[in-house]
């Protein structure tokens, strides 16, 4: 299956308004992807519309969010079931710092229905660090039945590498996300205790625009998906 499990909808202030539930699913379909996930910053509120759009359009979807820990490390929470992903929201709400969004500076945070109609706006700024440590984020993701994937692990911004120097060996994460396959070598050079063959590697786009959604180049086996998230059916 061709996949891309990290992209932002128009709920993320930094994403383009064209990133609507239907546009995302249709573009992913055109690109030949089989499995996608919408992972907005610190929010699951776009997921109900995305789930309906994915079902209507006929593309596989996991449900998630990109959490930012108090150390300013980004970690993906990915779930097989919509309801499980939504069950993370009260915990997120309890750990938001409560900073209002300035649309003119950060961009708007649009919540849509399955017809791509705006049904609300998130008033709190989403690109913030939660008042929960990385350990606490991973623990809560697991408690709600999700998988914790450390996001863009060698990026220069908000990665575990920039913030914490290296991947904490005792952190019970489920996978590591990179942008390109050759980054596996870089991750292992910086974290020599990591075994290439014993690690789940995801190569995602982190798209904020339609054009940046991955082409059909990165494959994940149904076995791997089933091992991480159970049977998709």
């Amino acid at each position, binding site marked *: 299956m061709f996949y891309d499990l990290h992209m932002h909808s128009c709920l993320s202030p930094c994403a383009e308004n064209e990133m609507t539930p239907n546009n995302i699913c249709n573009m992913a379909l055109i690109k030949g992807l089989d499995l996608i996930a919408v992972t907005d910053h610190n929010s699951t509120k776009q997921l109900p519309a995305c789930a309906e759009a994915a079902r209507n359009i006929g593309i596989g979807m996991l449900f998630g969010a990109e959490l930012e820990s108090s*150390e300013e490390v980004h970690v993906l929470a990915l779930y097989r079931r919509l309801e499980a992903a939504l069950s993370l929201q009260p915990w997120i709400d309890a750990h938001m710092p409560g900073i209002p969004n300035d649309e003119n500076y950060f961009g708007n945070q649009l919540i849509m229905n399955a017809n791509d109609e705006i049904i609300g706006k998130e008033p709190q700024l989403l690109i913030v660090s939660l008042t929960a*440590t*990385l350990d606490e984020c991973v623990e809560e993701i697991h408690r709600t039945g999700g998988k914790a994937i450390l996001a863009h692990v060698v990026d220069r911004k908000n990665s575990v*590498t*920039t*913030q*914490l*120097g*290296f991947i*904490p060996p*005792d952190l019970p994460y489920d996978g590591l996300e990179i942008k390109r396959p050759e980054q596996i070598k870089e991750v292992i050079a910086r974290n020599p205790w990591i075994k290439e063959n014993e690690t789940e590697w995801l190569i995602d786009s982190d798209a904020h625009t339609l054009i940046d959604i991955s082409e059909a180049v990165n494959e994940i086996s149904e076995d791997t998906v089933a091992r991480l998230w159970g049977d998709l059916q």
Partner: protein
Amino acid sequence: MTIQQLIEQTGWKPVTKDADVTKEINGAYCSDLLSWVMGKGQPDQAWITVQSHINVIAVAVLREFSCVILAEGAHFPENVISRAEDEDLVLIESDLPVFETARKLIELGV
């Protein structure tokens, strides 16, 4: 100056029990991005930060810092303190913001 002298003259609390406070402090380094600290910290410096993740201990040992000062009234978690004690690394907590903590060190001649 030594860590012991710093503690006596500032009133800041060492949170590690048995770690060696007779070490000399030569200069200080301020940053919360551990990737930068790993690349730029120098031996015997006091490291001022608001970062209290357990990776702080490994980075401080790697750079041979004299001690780590956690500013802004933040607290080190228990597991971090015990890891520091294993490594004989002194952890200190300061109520002052990072800039004021650094100013204090400068005033004391660090």
